[in-house]
């Protein structure tokens, strides 16, 4: 457990955990909650879209209090950070405010940290009670897909630029052939944020305790780009420079209109072959339009066994068997975040395939892939 301030008059330290879609934020947070964070930790998980699944993917124990919000925190119409934190304090009970030692706010993978950090820097002095104070920004960076994310999405650059701790994830998946692109990624991180501490999640000396220890978050130390983005946020908020167009309407989202989230569900278990046929077709056809897919499924062959499923851009990770269903909701459910992809044909594909009992998959897939599908549980 990090050494945390216990003076009840000190503001409650808040760590912002950000990182692009599928970069491992939730996994890192789960690990921290299991091993280095104490029971007096509050967690806010913000998810893009209207359906939350990350709360089922975070394995929380020992009485941490978690609040899940939907609607991106960085969007004008999105959730309010302080309101979410206050709800945590209230949920902790009468002495919760005194007991709370740390709050962690996990953003969506598409979050622009500038408005979120601006919100957190502007926490008013509490009229009563302790109040909150930004105590660090942790950004997870997927060592395999980050260069593509940086190339395509400004949010990915900003997430790195605002960090005072970058955690490289999935470095265990890198091969020798990836060395050049990995070096280029490190160069880009250094270009965006020359002074940030870069940690390798899979290094022997990785210090999870240190990463989740609250510290003073110094905006000025993050460089001119960060100062500029924060100032621009301030300048844009009450933009009165354009008569009749006082402030641009970002509606429910500040992201491009083409980015959206939707969920596919099934009340009954899926057939294993049918589901993998769906995944394979999805992977081959959706291409770059599929930014992220995650969820929980079960199969007719093992109806009591839940699996978590993840796809990040072009990388499909093998389903991972979970010990038990994380809640009473036993439906198979997949959340998609897509850009410029019509959900309707995807929904039709899902409904047409996931209950199939045919052997389509085995007939078309390479032997190795077929083996993986048959033995996904064993190979987690």
């Amino acid at each position, binding site marked *: 457990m990090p050494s945390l301030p216990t003076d009840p008059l000190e503001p409650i330290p808040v760590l912002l955990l950000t990182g692009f879609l599928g970069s491992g934020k939730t996994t890192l947070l789960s690990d921290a909650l299991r091993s280095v964070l104490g029971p007096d930790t509050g967690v806010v998980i913000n998810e893009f879209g209207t359906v939350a699944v990350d709360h089922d993917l975070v394995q929380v124990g020992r009485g941490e209090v978690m609040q899940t919000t939907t609607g991106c925190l960085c969007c004008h119409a999105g959730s309010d950070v302080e309101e979410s934190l206050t709800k945590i304090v209230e949920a902790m009970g009468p002495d919760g405010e005194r007991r709370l030692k740390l709050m962690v706010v996990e953003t969506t993978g598409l979050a*622009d940290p*500038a408005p979120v950090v601006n919100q957190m820097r502007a926490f008013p002095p509490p009229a009563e009670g302790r109040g909150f104070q930004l105590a660090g920004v942790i950004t997870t960076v997927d060592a*395999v897909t980050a260069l*593509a994310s*940086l*190339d*395509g*999405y*400004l949010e*990915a*650059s900003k997430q790195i630029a605002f960090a005072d701790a970058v955690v490289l994830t999935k470095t265990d*998946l890198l091969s020798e052939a990836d060395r050049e692109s990995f070096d280029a990624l490190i160069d*880009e991180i250094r*270009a*965006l944020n020359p002074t940030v501490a870069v940690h390798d999640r899979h290094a022997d000396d990785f210090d999870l305790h240190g990463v989740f220890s609250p510290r003073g978050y110094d905006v000025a130390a993050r460089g*001119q*780009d960060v*100062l*500029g*983005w924060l*100032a*621009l946020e*301030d*300048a*844009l908020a009450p*933009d009165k*420079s354009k008569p009749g*167009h006082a402030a*641009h*309407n*970002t*509606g429910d*989202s*500040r*992201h*491009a*209109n*083409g980015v959206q989230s939707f969920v596919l569900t099934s009340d009954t278990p899926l057939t294993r072959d049918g589901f993998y046929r769906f995944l394979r077709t999805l*992977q*081959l056809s*959706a*291409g*770059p339009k599929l930014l992220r897919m995650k969820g929980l499924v079960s199969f007719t062959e093992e109806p009591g066994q839940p699996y978590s499923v993840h796809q990040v*851009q*072009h*990388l*499909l*990770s*093998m389903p991972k068997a979970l010990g038990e269903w994380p809640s009473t909701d036993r439906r198979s459910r997949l959340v998609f975040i897509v850009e410029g992809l019509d959900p309707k044909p995807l929904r039709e594909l899902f409904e047409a395939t996931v209950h199939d009992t045919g052997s389509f998959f085995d007939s078309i897939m390479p032997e190795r*892939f077929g083996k*993986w599908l048959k033995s996904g549980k064993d*190979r987690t």
Partner: protein
Amino acid sequence: MTFNNPLAPKARAIPQKLREIKAWVRDLFELDDDTAVTVSELACRDEGCPDIETVIGLLTAGHPSEVHRLHKPLADVERDDVAALAMVSRLAKAADPHD
């Protein structure tokens, strides 16, 4: 185990474009070192606005921020777009020297 999709996302080269735009702004607006240039991208749902636009801020200590918008994504911004902004800005300042 992971599987690579041959239809992997195409690069838009955002980091390089960001640096290019900042350099163009500094050059074409003839800015000195006291003015910081910041570039961002925002979605807008107002009728008549593009889905996504590039926002350029010129930030000088002790002065109001100067904000310029280009009605296209950051990846599509060209030097000529910035040159047009700079010209409009100069004309506006010439018309209203107190602005």
